[in-house]
């Protein structure tokens, strides 16, 4: 079966006046129809650049795709003619941006912007298109859609604007939607509404959804598979439960351990005030053990040391090694490939797990350094 979207070894460079920045250094991921892939990463991890390269909206110059393939239903988007690609981009794949206010045309009523999609791509008459636009606004649960179709983007609240963005993306019932931080700019109660809407539409239309975010929480609720990016590369991919239960990369584990949780005040990893190399730590504790040690009042959070590297000067070997508690000599010298995390070592249910860590086995087993 061909996958809906299959990105293979994608590479993107940015030419800056201080040198060439390798923003994406060989990323592979895929998503099937009706599934959600979450791409998790911090700013500068290359997660958004990857999405732009897939959509063909990379700013170039300075950006440039230097390698890899982007297969959409088995056909490489990167080698296709510009015209063909534009047609696919309009009708079969769509993108939702973080900042809906700047993604919508400020001088056109939202109803007209939605109707335009139908007029241009479906050749509908103005009247039909407007009717469809109102239906669509209704579908994304904009109250009094009929009256509000004549309003301009700035007259809507942030959450409502994001719904309109979703409506725009949904208009032509695409097979794939890429959502780049769709809820980051929204308040938490509105965030929940928008994520629910996205998940519901995905189910209903059996679309593939690529959800790009930096928020571990948002991802946990909606994703099927998660790809974690760091410094322009994928460091781990796993089904959502496996990733949270038993991360196979020290970066993932560091992220998970460093976020405080609303249902638990305390620090997880170093709640006795010791770093991970505390000699008293029992070796080989599994995920359950790790979790049970939460909740010490007033403990410090676990913190990953250092800051994410600049794409202009990536560390040698594994890009995470300067910040990694597990780093050895080999990590400095040799870039880890994406190891297949085998079923024997992982939970039986998990298939297709990968980790770019020389010591993924130790990490998976929760071995301490």
């Amino acid at each position: 079966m061909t996958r809906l979207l299959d990105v293979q070894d994608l590479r993107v460079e940015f030419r800056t006046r201080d040198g060439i920045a390798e923003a994406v250094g060989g990323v592979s991921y895929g998503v099937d129809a009706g599934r959600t892939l979450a791409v998790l990463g911090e700013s500068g991890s290359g997660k958004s650049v990857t999405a732009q390269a897939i959509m063909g909206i990379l700013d170039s110059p300075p950006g440039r795709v230097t390698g890899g393939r982007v297969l959409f239903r088995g056909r490489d988007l990167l080698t296709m003619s510009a015209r063909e690609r534009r047609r696919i981009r309009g009708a079969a794949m769509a993108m939702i941006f973080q900042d809906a206010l700047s993604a919508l045309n400020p001088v056109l009523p939202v109803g007209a912007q939605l109707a335009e999609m139908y007029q241009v791509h479906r050749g509908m008459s103005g009247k039909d298109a407007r009717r469809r636009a109102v239906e669509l606004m209704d579908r994304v649960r904009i109250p009094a859609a009929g009256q509000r179709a004549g309003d301009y983007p700035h007259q809507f609240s942030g959450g409502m604007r994001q719904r309109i963005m979703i409506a725009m993306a949904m208009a032509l019932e695409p097979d794939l939607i890429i959502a780049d931080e769709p809820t980051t700019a929204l308040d938490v109660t509105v965030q929940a509404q928008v994520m629910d809407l996205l998940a519901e539409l995905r189910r209903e239309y059996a679309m593939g959804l690529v959800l790009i975010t930096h928020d571990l929480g948002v991802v946990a609720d909606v994703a099927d598979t998660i790809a974690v990016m760091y410094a322009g590369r994928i460091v781990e991919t796993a089904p959502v439960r496996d990733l949270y239960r038993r991360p196979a990369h020290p970066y993932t584990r560091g992220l998970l351990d460093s976020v405080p949780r609303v249902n638990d005040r305390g620090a997880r990893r170093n709640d006795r005030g010791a770093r991970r190399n505390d000699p008293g730590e029992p070796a080989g504790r599994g995920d359950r053990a790790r979790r049970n040690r939460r909740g010490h009042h007033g403990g410090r959070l676990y913190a990953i040391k250092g800051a994410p590297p600049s794409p202009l000067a990536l560390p040698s070997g594994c890009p995470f090694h300067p910040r990694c508690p597990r780093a050895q000599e080999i990590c400095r010298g040799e870039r880890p490939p994406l190891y297949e995390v085998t079923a024997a070592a992982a939970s039986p249910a998990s298939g297709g797990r990968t980790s770019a860590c020389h010591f993924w086995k130790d990490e998976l087993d929760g071995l301490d350094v």
Partner: protein
Amino acid sequence: MPEPFDTRYDTTEALAPADSGGGPLGRATPGPPILEGGPRRRPLPWRTGPGRRSGGPAAPPGRGLWSDAWHDLRRNPVFVLSALVILFLVVIAIWPQLIASGNPYHGDLAKAQDGPAPGHPFGYDLQGRDVYTRTVYGARASITVGICATLGAALLGSVLGGLAGYFGGWWDALLSRIADVFFGIPILLGGLVFLSVVTSGSVWPVVGFIVLLGWPQISRIARGSVVTVKEHDYVQAARALGASSGRTLLRHIAPNAVAPVIVVATIALGTYIALEATLSFLGVGLKPPTVSWGIDISSAAPQIRNAPHMLLWPAGALSLTVLAFIMLGDAVRDALDPKLR
């Protein structure tokens, strides 16, 4: 201090500034706008971070906006060229004797309108004066008017505009209205009216007139710039510390608000020189015996058919000077424009 902070959290990020390899000190090419995911409002990741050039804790002191700008300017051929031209003009404005040994007032009517001759490469004017010497001496008036008028307008405009922007309120409203009134005066008409009552032929009435009409432009820029900078958190931080208005203005607002003023002033300098020549051409600016390109152009204009050299040299010098200043302004704007960094 015993054990300043406990070791449970990590400070390695901070203590080893070069660990991430560093970035280009915030001067990267503007990246795609959509790249800015993650938490709101944040520049490209590689625009920040410890400097690549800073090899470790003992790194050289960093560059600020000015040294960054200077670093850019030195590599900009437009800047280098225009700066050389301007330097040359300033030198001959101060010491015209260096390259012109003759007397700009000395005329030999027998040679009136004669073409180039040995030792007189530009020929002679209507009164038999050496055009080369007069062109060289004419730089002084143009440069003096340009620089003094710009300094005056920039000083007046940025002080008034800056205060209006900082304090706001009625002072701001009043000043804006006054500036509007001055904006409304057509510059040539104003020049003809104001300057025709002045009998002195020196540069000062012209400088005064240009300052009078030029400050509102600068004050608008300065006001806008101050209003923007005033809202920045570091200004709020200074106020929260209890800093006085004077301190806030001088230490925090002025250094951050001055760049647009400099850019506009540098470009305005070229236009002020052209304005002086225009006014002199019309007979209300500088007046003989002051030597000025405008005056020479004016007297040469009727003779353009039989003695074009009389017009071409002063006019060429004027164009070159104006061009040099405008190019300099462009280069400075490119180096200082915050949108490009």
